[in-house]
């Protein structure tokens, strides 16, 4: 049957030609010139591909994580927002006033705002939301913490809600700007958790229409929308008719879908794809570092060997990360020398503390008594090896960061540190931290405002939560730092607050408790057709209210 044989070989031949052709094509793909600005065009559906985990509940009051915030930003709104300079600006509240003792804040709500189920926004709905967040049945974690100092909300009038505090809180406005304490329809909340998780009701520019688990959430335009934040580019309803929010866990697939035009926006691009997109005319990069803390390596000062400051400084002087950051992040991440994110206007940096100095590192270790070396070159003291356990969460550290940690390991080795990197899933990673099985660790923390310093470096945060979780992973217990952070949290004077936070950061950095790396990376890649999208300068989630599709 030679005919069949020939046909078969021909087919294989064609296939291999197709493959070779495809690979050649992949190498020299042409790109479309970027669409110019022009006037916004209404209509169209924007497809968003998210690599963040699919929320288990769309109501950000429940639990409260970043994937929830990403979605909630499209359909829920907060009392206040923050502009690019870090200034708090009106949103659902048009003005606010604090009483002299700092224990009562009165928020005046915008007039004529209704939730998308028709319920009017009034002071009573704000009260219901705060009660919802504080109710243990809601199982709120992030929002609950944000409202830690809020005792009750009193309805002063239809449009005025009074927050009564247990102690003065200079971070209240920043806390209230976060999507985890966004205001939902009381009627929606009253439906019960199951229904509210499926489709929370807010005042936002879009409405949750459908949630097909593991696949997508469809958001449709709110045609009666009236309440954009003060820094929005336009008024009235959004331009886009709908947003299709897809869950695409694999980063290569997300980027391929963006390149192929199947989706318009992707989040969590890897550094190499950001660099590639930067070189392309048809894609745009939205760089939106998260607020709160920078990404940093914390040194556990609560146990040997980092209970000795000399050893902490030796580690920081021994490791070399600049070249690694440059190479592994393809120039997309800027080196940080601050405990705070660069988006925080009160961030204080001091690069001189972090200049690598191997000689000083060795001298400090000798001085601290780590003088012997074993066969591997690891330093020893009284028979104990200078081992640093480094649990790394594969959910939180992208491959580039994991590689960077290997460089930390390699450079620290020269000074005699034995860094043991352990790649763990999120549950195991939290388990290792709760059991204090770490000497160094990198743990991101997102929160609006410098009050994150209190969460991360106040000695109260060493005490574990019931779950075993504690935020002060450096186990920094310095009464001077504590009192600076407490004063800063309570003062109502902006200038004094800035001074106190600067002094606190000086002490924290000066004590060699952490090695700042870069801002918490948070990037979005947009197809050239997407115009007018931006990140809200609160927790840097994207908003598509001002966005439109140019064709």
């Amino acid at each position, binding site marked *: *049957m030679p005919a*069949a*044989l020939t046909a*078969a070989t021909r087919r294989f031949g064609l296939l291999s030609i*197709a*493959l070779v052709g*495809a*690979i050649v*094509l*992949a190498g020299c*793909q042409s790109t479309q010139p970027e669409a110019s600005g022009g006037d916004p065009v209404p209509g169209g559906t924007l497809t968003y*591909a998210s690599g963040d*985990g*699919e929320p*288990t*509940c769309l109501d950000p009051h*429940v*639990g*409260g*994580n970043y994937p929830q915030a990403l979605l909630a930003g499209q359909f829920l709104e907060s009392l206040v927002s923050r502009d690019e300079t870090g200034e708090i600006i009106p949103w659902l509240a048009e003005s606010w006033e604090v009483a002299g003792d700092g224990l009562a804040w009165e928020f005046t709500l915008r007039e004529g705002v209704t939730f998308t189920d028709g319920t009017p926004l009034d002071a009573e709905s704000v009260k219901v939301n705060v009660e919802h967040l504080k109710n*243990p049945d809601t*199982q709120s*974690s*992030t929002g*609950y*913490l944000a409202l830690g100092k809020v005792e009750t909300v009193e309805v002063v009038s239809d449009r005025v809600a009074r927050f009564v505090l247990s102690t003065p809180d200079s971070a209240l406005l920043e806390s209230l700007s976060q999507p985890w304490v966004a205001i939902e329809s009381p009627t929606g909340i009253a439906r019960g*958790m199951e229904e509210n*998780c499926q489709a929370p009701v807010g005042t936002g520019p879009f409405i949750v229409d459908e949630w*097909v*688990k*593991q*696949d997508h959430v469809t958001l449709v335009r709110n045609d009666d929308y009236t309440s954009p934040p003060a820094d929005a580019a336009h008024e009235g309803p959004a331009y886009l008719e709908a947003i299709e929010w*897809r*869950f*695409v*866990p*694999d980063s*290569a*697939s*997300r980027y*391929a*879908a963006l*390149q*192929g035009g*199947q*989706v318009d926006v992707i989040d969590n691009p890897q550094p190499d794809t950001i660099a590639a997109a930067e070189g392309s005319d048809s894609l745009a990069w939205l760089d939106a570092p998260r607020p709160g803390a920078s990404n940093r390596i914390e040194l556990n000062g609560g146990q040997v060997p980092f209970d000795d400051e000399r050893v902490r400084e030796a580690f920081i002087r021994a490791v070399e990360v600049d070249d690694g950051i440059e190479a592994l992040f393809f120039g997309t991440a800027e080196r940080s020398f601050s405990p705070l994110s660069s988006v925080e206007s009160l961030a204080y940096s001091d690069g001189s503390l972090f200049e690598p100095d191997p000689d000083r590192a060795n001298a400090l270790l000798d001085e601290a008594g780590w003088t012997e070396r074993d066969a591997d070159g690891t330093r020893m003291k009284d028979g104990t090896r200078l081992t640093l356990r480094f649990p790394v969460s594969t*959910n939180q550290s992208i491959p580039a960061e994991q590689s960077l940690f290997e460089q930390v390991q390699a450079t620290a080795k020269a000074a005699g540190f034995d860094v043991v990197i352990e790649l763990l*899933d*999120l*549950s*195991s*990673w*939290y*388990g*290792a931290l709760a059991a204090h099985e770490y000497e160094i660790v990198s743990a991101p923390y997102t929160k609006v405002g410098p009050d994150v310093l209190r969460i991360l470096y106040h000695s109260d945060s060493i005490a574990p*939560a*019931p*779950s*075993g*979780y504690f935020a002060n992973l450096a186990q920094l217990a310095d009464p001077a730092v504590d009192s600076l952070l407490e004063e800063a949290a309570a003062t109502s004077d902006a200038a004094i607050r800035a001074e106190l936070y600067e002094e606190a950061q000086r002490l924290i950095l000066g004590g060699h408790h952490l090695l700042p790396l870069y801002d918490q990376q948070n990037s979005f890649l947009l197809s050239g057709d997407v115009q007018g999208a931006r990140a809200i300068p609160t927790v840097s989630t994207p908003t598509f209210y001002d966005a439109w599709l140019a064709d």
Partner: protein
Amino acid sequence: MLRRTGLLLAGAVFVMWAVATLTFFAIRLIPGDPAQAILGGPGSQASQEALDQVRRDYGLDQPLIVQYLAMLGRLLTGDLGTSYALKVPVAELLGAQLGGTLLLAVLSLAVAWVLALALSLWSTGRSRIATVLGEWIELAAAALPHFWFAAVLIAVFSTALGWFPPVATGTPAGLVLPVVTLAVPLAGFLAQVMRESLLDAMQQPFVVSARARGEGALGIRLRHTIRHAALPGISLSGWALGWLLSGAVVVETIFAMPGLGRTLLQAVTLRDIPIVTGVVLLIALVYVVMTILTDAASRLADPRLRRQAAAR
């Protein structure tokens, strides 16, 4: 026959029990608190009251053996429990995801069969070159790791050629790359075993006599030897379907398809014990059912097995 069926059923029940037990204890060996899984995942800052209440509500404050027996009791009544993270009945959730994964697995199995049969029929009993080439193709295909093969397919057929989408959105075009990803390595396995039996069959006297009657090469293959090639393929198909379900974890993640594989992956990460148990039991059930079915199918395809059974 009755005795045989009874034994099969007892074996099936035993397998399901063993799987449920192993899963129950294995998932508790990895760190992670189910109460936290319920309260928003690992690292949640849930209050003590919330944790206590959840432990009471879900019976997590009971001794492990009590929890285990309670789970067995529920399973006996067909109740798979409620997802910790999603707060929906597991049965409902799996029901919604089963269809997509089964479609993916069955399509992949079908395509793998076609590819394997075509390859083995084409390459067996021909020139030395065809045989060697066939062997190489089988070996290469069987060795393809899913995640790598999927990435190559996306690079070529999505990014470069734009023929198929990299994200499966429920359209037939979206299914092509996932099915090919799963089918090609499986075809490699199947073709290997098929060709061996085929080669064996080609040397049988009945082939010589068929040839003597004037049958062409194609006729011999289609009318006579294909059954022999199919036999090991059939008995492998039960194993293959289970193998495809585990491959679905990778493929569903890469192509962003809803399905059991992705559900399982997410549930393990979140320590969502009811879902993990449910998915594992379901996959075990598919294995068991497929083993019984392939057993029956082998009897249909091979009269010798039927005769043995009748003699028994």
